[in-house]
């Protein structure tokens, strides 16, 4: 038997970003025993990096804003593939969730009359993002963290969950290890909330950290849950492109919200050249009007730089491809130009965008108050994720819940900026609430020691693989002796890097059937190589080992993205196919679902979207 410590909980939350913290706070407020596990230190999750703001129709800047407008904006942004019920709950509940943060100590920027200030962001009709300069995520995670630690939540920092354990179909617990010492941990839990964030590490150029290896997606998939909308990956239009070592790091949309403009090498504002029909009424057709909008005019329409991210990203790719890019393979993002309009422009920029100023100054040696930035698309967010019930956030596995970026439903084909932070709060709270309820209504389940032994052996396999052996021998008996598994020991970093190249080049911003089928073949080959992964050293803080274990998850999510993308033979939102460049009305009526079949292979299902009730249809009509 492997050695491990056991921790008994009512609810286990996996992930300590905004969604996990909010879920844990909610669950523990009812007195339940709550454990919270995260791969990094507390407060370092991705949520800390969010810059622009949190979307909620508080209506403090424009009183015309309300949940209905926010709902309609979200549905339009998601190209009507979103779960309308989640979009409704989100729009209705986000204002309360943001105000609650203020009651817990968050300090948002203020309006002249002392209320929470809101800023413009792409796809939102009114100024809607509550923010703190450009470090909103830090404010949010710190507020939740500081509130949460006084509630008696049991926090396990720098621990990784590697498997969900079940008892007769329902959740029984989870198995993991602590990264510092490498010791195994068994969490007994009546309900589990997955809040593990995204999958950006499947790509080479990304704004995401090492943590984003799709763990929650893969844990749920392996436990038998459905993943949905995996073809929709958001490529943020503005990442840094230079210097090479920081390529992909995000440049907040807030830069454009504050009046920043995109230009090509000819100095042209190319975004005016291609404004999609659906947004023509709401988009400025001249530069002065766009500027007025960013300065808070209520009558002006938004500049085309603030169109949805998928569209802006593709326009940038087009400019670069057609030879009008910047010296380091991006385009120019210029905020310095506002000195023509504002007396204290440099000071204004430093105050509104302090961390962007800092980031360019220190990492690229560029002063954004005088010099345009070079930017290009970067893998940023995954709209797809674990399918959940809109009200309760429970997956198809009883007792297994998911919230935040690793869940799906709210964002459809494309997420609007700011809608993620609000998503974390609204659905993190719901997941915590319903997980506690489930834990109360269902007694504890029992964990099969055989399952524990199998996961433990699987986790340790990279240490004892020898050349030509099957590294995952204990868990994958069917592969033993497979001739294709024979070969030299593999380095986990190299496989990860090869997978990133495949995804970047073949399942990226512009996709074709041929490329993606090739990617699926590549992924199969990478899976075989992953069986031969070998790591050196011992179990203490061993990044090589951690990378080896993350690989399994990255391979699952990469395959899910590629299979779903092959199945969606049209272009919509974040999914653009050169071979099917238009929307297909029939495909607009369904979601693509993948799950693990009884034979262990990935199954793809086309699932019709439930009809929207008339009251919501009417809201959308009114907001057109």
């Amino acid at each position, binding site marked *: 038997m492997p050695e491990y410590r056991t921790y008994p909980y009512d609810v286990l939350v996996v992930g300590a970003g905004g969604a996990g913290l909010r879920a844990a706070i909610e669950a523990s407020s009812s007195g339940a025993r709550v454990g919270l596990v995260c791969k990094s230190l507390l407060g370092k999750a991705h949520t800390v990096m969010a810059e622009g703001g949190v979307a909620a129709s508080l209506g403090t800047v424009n009183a015309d804003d309300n949940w209905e407008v926010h709902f309609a904006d979200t549905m339009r942004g998601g190209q009507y593939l979103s779960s309308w019920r989640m979009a409704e709950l989100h729009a209705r509940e986000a204002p309360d969730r943001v105000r609650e943060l203020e009651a817990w100590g968050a300090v948002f920027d203020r309006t002249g009359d002392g209320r929470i200030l809101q800023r413009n962001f792409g796809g939102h009709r009114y100024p809607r993002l509550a923010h703190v300069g450009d470090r909103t995520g830090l404010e949010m995670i710190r507020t939740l963290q500081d509130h949460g630690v006084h509630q008696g939540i049991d926090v396990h920092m720098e621990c990784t969950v590697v498997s969900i354990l079940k008892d007769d179909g329902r959740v029984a617990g989870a198995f993991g290890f602590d990264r510092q010492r490498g010791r195994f941990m068994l969490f007994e839990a009546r309900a589990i909330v997955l809040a593990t964030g995204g999958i950006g590490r499947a790509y080479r150029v990304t704004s995401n950290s090492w943590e984003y290896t799709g763990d929650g997606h893969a844990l749920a998939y392996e436990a038998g849950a459905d993943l949905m909308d995996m073809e929709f990956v958001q490529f943020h239009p503005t990442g840094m492109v230079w210097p090479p070592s920081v390529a992909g790091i995000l440049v907040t949309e807030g830069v454009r919200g504050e009046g920043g403009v995109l230009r090509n090498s000819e100095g042209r504002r190319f975004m005016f050249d291609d404004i999609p029909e659906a947004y023509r009424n709401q988009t400025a057709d001249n530069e002065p009007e766009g500027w007025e909008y960013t300065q808070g005019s209520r009558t002006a329409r938004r500049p085309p730089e603030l169109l949805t991210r998928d569209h802006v990203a593709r326009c940038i790719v087009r400019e670069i491809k057609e030879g009008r890019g910047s010296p380091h393979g991006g385009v120019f993002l210029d905020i310095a130009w506002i000195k023509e309009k504002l007396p204290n422009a440099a000071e204004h920029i430093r105050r509104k965008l302090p961390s962007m100023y800092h980031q360019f100054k220190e990492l690229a040696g560029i002063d954004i108050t005088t010099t345009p930035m070079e930017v290009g698309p970067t893998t940023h967010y995954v709209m797809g994720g674990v399918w959940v019930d809109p009200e309760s956030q429970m997956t198809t596995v009883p007792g297994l819940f998911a919230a935040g970026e690793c869940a799906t439903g709210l964002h459809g084909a494309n997420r609007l900026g700011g809608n993620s932070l609000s998503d974390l709060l609204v659905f993190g709270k719901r997941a915590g609430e319903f997980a506690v309820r489930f834990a109360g209504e269902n007694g504890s389940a029992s964990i099969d020691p055989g399952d524990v032994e199998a996961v433990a052996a699987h986790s340790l396999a990279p240490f004892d693989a020898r050349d030509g052996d099957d590294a995952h021998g204990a868990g994958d008996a069917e592969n033993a002796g497979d001739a294709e598994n024979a070969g030299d020991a593999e380095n986990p970093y190299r496989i990860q890097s090869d997978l990133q190249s495949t995804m970047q080049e073949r399942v990226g911003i512009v996709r074709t059937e041929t490329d993606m089928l090739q990617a699926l073949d590549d992924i199969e080959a990478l899976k075989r190589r992953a069986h031969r992964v070998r790591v050196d050293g011992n179990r203490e803080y061993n*990044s090589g*080992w951690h990378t080896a274990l993350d690989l399994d998850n990255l391979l699952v999510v990469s395959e899910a993205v590629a299979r779903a993308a092959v199945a969606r033979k049209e272009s919509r939102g974040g999914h653009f196919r050169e071979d099917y460049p238009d929307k297909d009305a029939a495909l607009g009526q369904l979601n693509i679902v993948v799950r693990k079949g009884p034979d262990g292979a990935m199954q793809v299902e086309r699932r019709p979207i439930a009809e929207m009730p008339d009251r919501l249809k009417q809201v959308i009509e009114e907001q057109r």
Partner: protein
Amino acid sequence: MKPVTFNVWRGDADGGAFATYETEISEGMVVLDAVHRIQAESAPDLAVRWNCKAGKCGSCSAEVNGAPRLMCMTRMDDMPDGEPVRVEPMKSFPLIRDLVTDVSWNFEVKKKIRPFKPRPPDADDGTWRMSQDDVDRVQEFRKCIECYLCQDVCHVLREHQLHDGFIGPRFFVHAAALEMHPLDTEDRVEELAATQGIGYCNITKCCTAVCPEHITITDNAIIPLKERVVDDLYDPIRRLFRVFRRKRT
């Protein structure tokens, strides 16, 4: 591309030594990139903490050529030409392995600081009114990314190891953020003096010098807190006045 030599601390609680690595440095690289390159090329089990690579999460704290720094914000072209670069872990905390230290003490300290307690809402809808000027002051403190570089450099922790009776500059910043929060009604002054050791700080300003968020820790957080301690504990009339004034704002 040019080759640079690195002396990186390898070891754990039981001891260790600097190991020498050489790696190629290209334009724009930061120290963290170099460490990652070393990890990929020649030391796959080298332990290092990081997340955002953009100075936002405060994970990658270490000492570079003896100075407490975020490795992701330390550019290689700022390093002296032709000389080896020395990278070692923070000294105020127990070593786990290589560049990774056990910073869990900080998380325990925070739990002991009284949490935020707001005054009743100002408006019927349960919301408050605050002016931007008032929030600017605490926003400076709330920029803290919890990198603990200030804790690393402070002699009270680093040399005197007074972790039991001194919370360190990071938590004076935290206490200041709460004490000066326009809505807060809690009083933390007594503990600051009695159990949190603000008296040990002799205003050397080393913490301010290393803060990557440029928080003026000493002047804006610690000194005003020290003043409150003096006011509140030694001058009861001013204490009353302050409580009264704070309730009105």
